[in-house]
C-alpha cells in the first residue's frame, strides 16, 4: 500500500500538470462551433446537403469543426420562435416579410438586411405550381380549373405557411388579372371554398395530398412538387399554370445573436457559401432555381419558364401585402366569414 503512494501522487501531479494542456487540446479538437439555421418547411433535404458541404469546406479553410443545427417548420411559426428568443444564427425563411417581422419586433438585425447580400439576399428562387394525380383526371390546366365545383384543392394555411402565402398571392394575381382587386378577392374566395384541409405547413399539406389521398390538386412549391414525385413515386404530375409568382426565399444573419454567440465569421461564411458554385449546384439538384447561371443552365431543362409576377410589382412589397391580405381581420380572414 505504502509503496503505491508515491507513484499515485506522481500520477496525480502528472494529471494536474497535463490538465490545462489536455483541456485546451480537447477544446480545439472536439468542441465544434455550433451554428443554428432556422428554416422553413421544404428545405429539410436541401440544407442537409448544404450543411455537409459547408462543414467540409469550412474545415478545409479554417480547420474549425462545425456542428450545424437545423430547425424546420412553417415560415411564420419559425419567425415567431426566433422573435420569442430561439437563438438562430441565420434564418433562411420562405419570404422576406417574416424576416422583416424579426427585424421589427425583436430588433435582431437592421431593417435594411435585404440589401446586405446579393440578389435581395435570395440565393435562389422558386415558384408555385400545381401537383395533380397521375393522368390529371380532373383535367386541371390552369387557375380557372381550380375553382370548378368538385375540385379539391390542398394548400397550407397562409397564416402560418410561407409557401401558402406565395400560392395565395399567385392565385390573387391571377384573379385580379381578370377583374382587378375585386376579381382577385372573388377568385380567392372561390378557391378557398374548394379547400377541404388547411395544413399548418407545406409538409403537412403534401402529406395530406400524397399520403392521405385527399384532394385533386396541391398548390405546391415547385421544388416540393418534384420532391413529392421523388418520394411518393410516379403517381403524380406537375402542371405549370399560365402564370405564377416569383417566390424569393431570403436568407439573413441575425446580428445580435451571432455577436452573442461569437459566430459572425462562420455565419457570414455560411450565407456567402449559399451563392458559391458548389451550393448553387446543390440548390439546382433539389429543384430550386439557382442564381448562378451555370447551375441554372444545368438544371433548366426540368423547370418550365412561365410568366411570373413579383411581390414588389404586383403587391407593393411584403409589408403592404401582409396588411392587405394576411393580418388579423384582413382579406384572408374575410374569406372565412361564415356565410
Amino acid at each position, binding site marked *: 500500500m505504502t509503496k503505491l503512494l508515491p507513484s499515485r501522487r506522481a500520477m496525480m501531479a502528472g494529471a494536474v500538470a497535463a490538465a490545462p494542456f489536455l483541456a485546451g487540446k480537447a477544446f480545439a479538437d472536439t468542441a465544434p462551433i455550433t451554428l443554428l439555421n432556422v428554416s422553413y418547411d421544404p428545405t429539410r433535404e436541401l440544407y442537409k446537403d448544404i450543411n455537409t458541404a459547408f462543414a467540409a469546406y469550412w474545415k478545409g479553410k479554417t480547420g474549425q469543426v462545425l456542428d450545424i443545427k437545423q430547425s424546420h417548420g412553417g415560415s411564420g411559426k419559425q419567425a415567431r420562435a426566433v422573435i420569442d428568443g430561439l437563438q438562430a444564427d441565420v434564418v433562411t425563411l420562405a419570404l422576406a416579410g417574416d424576416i422583416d417581422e424579426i427585424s421589427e419586433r425583436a430588433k435582431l438585425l437592421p431593417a435594411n438586411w435585404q440589401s446586405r447580400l446579393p440578389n435581395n439576399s435570395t440565393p435562389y428562387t422558386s415558384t408555385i405550381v400545381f401537383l395533380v394525380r397521375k393522368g390529371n383526371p380532373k383535367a386541371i390546366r390552369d387557375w380557372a380549373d381550380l375553382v370548378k365545383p368538385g375540385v379539391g384543392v390542398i394548400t397550407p394555411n397562409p397564416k*402560418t405557411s410561407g409557401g401558402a402565402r406565395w400560392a395565395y398571392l399567385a392565385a390573387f394575381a391571377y384573379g385580379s388579372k381578370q377583374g382587378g382587386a375585386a376579381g382577385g378577392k372573388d377568385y380567392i374566395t372561390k378557391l378557398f371554398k374548394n379547400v377541404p384541409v388547411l395544413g399548418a405547413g407545406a409538409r403537412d399539406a403534401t402529406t395530406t395530398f400524397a399520403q392521405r389521398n385527399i384532394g385533386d390538386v396541391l398548390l405546391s412549391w415547385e421544388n416540393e412538387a418534384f420532391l413529392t414525385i421523388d418520394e411518393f413515386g410516379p403517381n403524380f404530375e406537375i402542371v405549370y399554370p399560365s402564370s405564377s409568382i416569383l417566390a424569393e426565399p431570403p436568407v439573413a444573419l441575425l446580428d445580435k445573436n451571432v455577436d452573442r454567440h461569437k459566430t459572425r465569421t462562420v455565419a457570414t461564411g455560411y450565407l456567402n457559401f449559399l451563392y458559391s458554385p458548389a451550393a448553387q449546384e446543390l440548390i439546382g439538384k433539389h429543384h430550386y432555381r439557382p442564381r448562378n447561371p451555370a447551375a441554372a443552365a444545368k438544371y433548366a431543362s426540368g423547370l418550365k419558364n412561365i410568366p411570373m409576377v413579383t411581390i414588389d410589382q404586383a403587391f407593393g412589397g411584403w409589408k403592404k401585402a401582409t396588411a392587405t391580405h394576411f393580418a388579423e381581420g384582413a382579406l384572408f380572414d374575410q374569406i372565412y366569414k361564415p356565410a
Partner: protein
Amino acid sequence: MTAQAILASPTKARRRPWVQHSILPGFGLSLGITLAYLGVIVVLPLVALAIRPWELGPAGVFHALAAPRVLAALKLSFGLSALAALLNAPLGVLLAWTLTRYQFPGRRILDALVDLPFALPTAVAGIALTAIYAPNGALGALAAKVGIKTAYSPLGIFIALVFIGLPFVVRSLQPVLQELDHEVEEAATTLGANSLQRAVRVILPALGPSLISGISLAFARAVGEYGSVVFIAGNLPGKTEIAPLLIVIKLESYDYAGAAAVGLAMVAISFGSLVAINGLQLMLARRGRA
C-alpha cells in the same frame, strides 16, 4: 426537534389562528413547499395569461373573442367535447359493467387496455387515428364507401375526442359498480321488463354522480386536446379549426395578446364548467343519500 416540536406547537398554532392545532409537525414546511411550487408553476403563469390580453383594452379583448372565427373555434371545441363526453357515457357504462360484472377470458387484459388512450402519447394517437380514418385508411375507406367523411371533418375530431375521453368514464364508474349491492345485480341479470326497469331505476341514480364526474373529466381533457386532434382535423377556419389550434395560429401571427385572450377564455370556460359540474355532482350525491 421532537419534544420541542410538540411543546412548541400550541404556541405556533396560536400564532396561526387559521390553522387548527395538531401535534403533527411539518405544516409550515409542507405548506411552504406547496405554495412556493404552486406559485411558480401555476399561479405566476396564470397571472401572465390573465394580464396579457388586456394590453388590447377591454374593447380589444371583446373584439378578439367575438370574432366569428374565434367563436366558431370555441363552439367547435366545447360542442364536440361535450358530444364526445356524452357518447363516452354509454360506452363507459358498457365497458365498466362488462369488466366488473362478468368473468371472461382476457378480461384483465381488456381492463388494463382501457387506459391505453391515456398512456399513448397524443401525437402518436393523432397520427395513428389519421392513418386509420383517412379516406384510404382501414376504417376511413369503409366510411367513404357509404359516403361518410371521417378524417378532416368534425366527425374525425369527434372520434379522436371519444378515444381520449374513454378511460375517464370507465375508471369513474368501476368502483361504484363494484360496490352496487347484489340485489341490483340480480335484477339486472334476470329477464323481464319489470326487473330491467327496476334495475335501470336503481342503477342509474347510483351511478349518477360518478358518471357525471367521469363525463366532466373526459370533457375537460377533450376541450384542451391538441396533439391527437390536430392531425385528423381539417383545420378549416369556422369549420374544423379547434380552439387550441387557433391559439397556436394566433401565436404564430405574433398576436400574443389575442392568443392569451383565447387561452384565458378556454381556461375560464372549462374551469367554470368543471366547478359547475362538481356542484351538480355534490347536489346529486346529497339527494342520493337523503
